[in-house]
Structure formats: structure tokens, C-alpha cells
């Protein structure tokens, strides 16, 4: 479904991604791991189209999408739950969700998708008329996920969705993600907490300094001494 080859991304003068390659098949749950500043968020941003690729390819459903505008990719079924949530603090929860359906192709299914999200996160139905900044961190994360779902994505990019979320809520969110996966949504998850990531993903890539350095299934990676050295000892 998604195929990245030798991706290069620059932030102005600074090169954040040197050489990233990865594949995600439809229906898979793939992890993207790496230390702080490794280039995970930049990779996700490049996939969605908020950063321009300076080199390499990003193919989605066999079409070249590197350097397409974000709106085109959202319409094509990619959505991002960004690091730090990036909600609209002075807008109501419901308005925040509705903004996720901004691309024209998504506007027809607003009511349907809202219902789906309120079923997934019932608390949001209750809080739909409160401003986003009045919610707890976990609830805000639910809004961010819900907003991404408003465009009925097939590929969901999640950037550290559990950061700053209370453990009880993490369980709830995790359950929701599992339900989505069961419905056929494909996942690319960025997560710093390896244990948590490994609970969810089937396969993962590791990037370091803007380069993919390791890849493999959950079992392969957990059995790989290099991987253990890099991550497992640390947390």
C-alpha cells in the first residue's frame, strides 16, 4: 500500500531524512521506531505531504505521492494524528472533529463519521460542545485520532499518540485502535515506548539519524541483539 524508497527530506538548510525506505501492506500495523530527533515525525509529515521530499520516492497504492499536497493525500485516504495533537484549542470538540472532514471528498460523510467516532470514544459525545482546550490530555488525544478518522482514512499515521496520556486512557485508546485495525485500517505508528509499540504492531522499522537501519517482524526484532541493545536496555 505504501512504499518509500531512499527518501530525503530537508528542513530548510537542515537535512532531517537522508535515506529512509519502508513498506506497509494493506491491513498491516507497522511501527516506526527510533530515538528523539531520528526523523520519525518528518517521515510521517513527508508521507502526508506537509513536508516536501528532496529526493527518493513515496508511492501510495502504486501512485507517486512525494510532493503532492496534503489535501490530495487526505482525499486519497491518508490521515495523520500528529505529535502534540495540534488541535484547535478555541474550537469545540465537535468543530475540531469536523475540520478533519475539510477535503471535499470527506464532506458528504460528516454525520456518519461523527457517529462512528462517538461510538469509538463515547466521552467525546458528551464533551462535543466544550472547547478542546478544556479537555484532559487523553481526551484531546481521542479528538486528534477522531479528527484523523473524519476523512475515512485507509492508512492512519500515528505520531506518539500515548505521550502525556494517563495509563487508564491508554488502554481505552489502544482498544479503539485495535477495533479500527479489525475494520481494515492500515497503521504506521511512531512510538518511543518500545513495549507499548510492540503490543500493537506486527512489524517495525528503526531509523537513526534519518536512515532506516533495522527492519523486521516483532519476533525478529525482539530476538535481535542489536535491537535489544538499542532499545530494550534503555527503558
Amino acid at each position, binding site marked *: 500500500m505504501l512504499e518509500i524508497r531512499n527518501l530525503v527530506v530537508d528542513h530548510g538548510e537542515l537535512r532531517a531524512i537522508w535515506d529512509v525506505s519502508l513498506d506497509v501492506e494493506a491491513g498491516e500495523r507497522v511501527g516506526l521506531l527510533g530515538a528523539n530527533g531520528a526523523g520519525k515525525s518528518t517521515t510521517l509529515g513527508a508521507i502526508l505531504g506537509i513536508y516536501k521530499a528532496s529526493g527518493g520516492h513515496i508511492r501510495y497504492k502504486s501512485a507517486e505521492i512525494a510532493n503532492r499536497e496534503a489535501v490530495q493525500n487526505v*482525499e486519497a485516504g491518508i490521515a495523520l494524528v500528529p505529535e502534540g495533537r495540534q488541535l*484547535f484549542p478555541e474550537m469545540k470538540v465537535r468543530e475540531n472533529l469536523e475540520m478533519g472532514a475539510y477535503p471535499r471528498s470527506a464532506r458528504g460523510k460528516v454525520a456518519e463519521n461523527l457517529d462512528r467516532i462517538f461510538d469509538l470514544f463515547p466521552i467525546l459525545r458528551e464533551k462535543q460542545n466544550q472547547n478542546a482546550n478544556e479537555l484532559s490530555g487523553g481526551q484531546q488525544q481521542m479528538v486528534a485520532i477522531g479528527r484523523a478518522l473524519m*476523512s475515512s482514512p485507509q492508512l492512519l499515521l500515528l505520531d506518539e499518540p500515548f505521550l502525556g496520556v494517563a495509563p487508564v486512557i491508554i488502554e481505552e485508546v489502544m482498544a479503539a485502535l485495535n477495533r479500527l485495525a479489525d475494520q481494515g485500517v492500515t497503521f504506521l505508528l511512531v512510538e518511543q515506548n518500545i513495549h507499548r509499540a510492540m503490543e500493537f504492531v506486527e512489524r517495525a522499522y528503526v531509523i537513526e539519524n534519518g536512515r532506516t537501519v533495522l527492519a523486521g517482524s516483532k519476533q525478529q526484532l525482539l530476538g535481535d541483539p542489536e535491537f535489544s541493545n538499542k532499545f530494550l536496555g534503555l527503558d
Partner: protein
Amino acid sequence: MTAIIAQLVISGLLLGGLYALVAFGLSLIYGVVRILNFAHGTLLAIGGIAASIIFAVYKLNPVLIAVVLVLVFLVFGYLMHIYLLDPLKKRNPFEATIGTVLVTVGLLLIISDLAAEIAGPTPKNIPLEFHAYIVGEVIIQRAELYILGGITLFTIALHLFLKKTWFGRAIRAVTQSPLGANICGIRSKQIHAQTVAVGCGIVAIAGVLWSLKFPVDPYGGFDLTVRAFTIIILGGIGNLVGALLAGLFLGLAEVFTSFLWASDWAPAVSIVLLLVILVVFPRGLASVRK
């Protein structure tokens, strides 16, 4: 005494409502594009002058004049963003900031001179000679009722636009989180240009309403820009309700200062108010509502 207070309140609300309209456009533009448009009040003056001239020559209904001017100002705002403001973004932040000040101040000077050259430097307004309503000792011009009605309707319309339309919501979204908006598929460059256009369109409406009551001249808009800055800071950036309240408050404060104290102090009210509120409510009046 009640009559005097009533008369002052009417004038204060009118003045303040008009101030708020000036602030609306400036606030939208700043919220989205993060550019302080120093030419904003001058654009109001140009709108008012154009409206006065169109009225004098064609005797057109002011509502129609507003429609025509809004279209012209929308186009002007769009082009202004594409050709003057947007290119500055390619500069580093320091140059960009200085650049926007220079560009908008330069624009202010140029359009003032140009308008003075074309239309003459004398103040102009739309002299609607309607009868007045007299209630006891309180006198209200029918034109003033039209202005109050216009301000109210327009504020409601703008509020609904920002709340209910995709475009309006996109403006608010970009104001509150540019990255979040980007992720939702909002094209920022397009929204920027469109918002500058809308901000200018709003100022055209403000200019027509303004010229129904007060004369404007090509050099007379800058103090309105300063008042609009004050209002935005009092009311909160991108906050329509806050701007309306702050505008009305400022208008009433000026009118009452002039009556209770001395007229030469009235223009200073906005500055004093600004200082006081920045000290007492550092997060703006809007935070008091909550």
C-alpha cells in the same frame, strides 16, 4: 441626566461598533497571516472616500455601494497578499517582520497620496439627510439606526460565516493551529490570500458604514489602525466577540471621557485603556468572560 446618558450611550455604541468593524478585518488577517497591516485604517478611509464619491455622483443606495466596494476590496486584498506580503515569507524571520512593517506602512503612504491626488485631500462622507427621532431630549438620526443595524447584522453574519462555513472555520483553524489546519488538508497559502481579501472586504463595509456618519480623508485612517490594535489586544487575537466588546467599550469610554472630563483627552483613552488592561488582565478581556 438620563437623557444625557442615553445620548452618550448611543454615540458611544455607534463609535465603538465602527471601531470594532475596523478591528475585525485586522484581527482576522493577523490571526491567519501573522502580519500587522498598518494600512488597515487607511483602507477604511479609502473605502469611505470611494463610497462618498460614488454616492455623490450616482446617488446609489449605500448597500449597493457596499456590495461594489466589497468586491473591489476583495480583489485588492488578494493581490496585495500575492504580490506584496507573501514574497516576504521567503526572507528570514527578522527581515520578514521588518519587511511587513515597511511594506504596509509604505502602502499606507502611497494609497493616501494617491487618493489625495485623485479625490482631493478634503474629508468626505455620505450625507444621508433623514429625519431624526426625538424621544424626550434624546435625538437619534435615522441614519444612525441604519448604521447600528448594519453593524449588528454584519457582526452576526461574520460570526455565522466563521462558525458555520468551511471557509470561515478554516480561517479559525489556521489562526489557532497552522500545523493542525495543514494536516486537515487546508491549503495555507490559499487561505492566507483569501483571508487578507476577506479582511479588506470587511474594511470596505466598515468604510461605507463609517462614512454614513463621520467624514474621512485620505490621511485620516492611521489613528483607526492604532485603535484597532488596541481592540485586538483587549479582545484577544482572532476573537470576534472579544473585539466587539472591546470596540464598544472603547467607543463608550471615549464618549464619556469627552463629556465627563475633557475632549482633548478622549483620543488618549485607547492608550490608557490598553496599558491598564495589559497590566490588570494580561490575557485580554476575553479571559475575563470565562
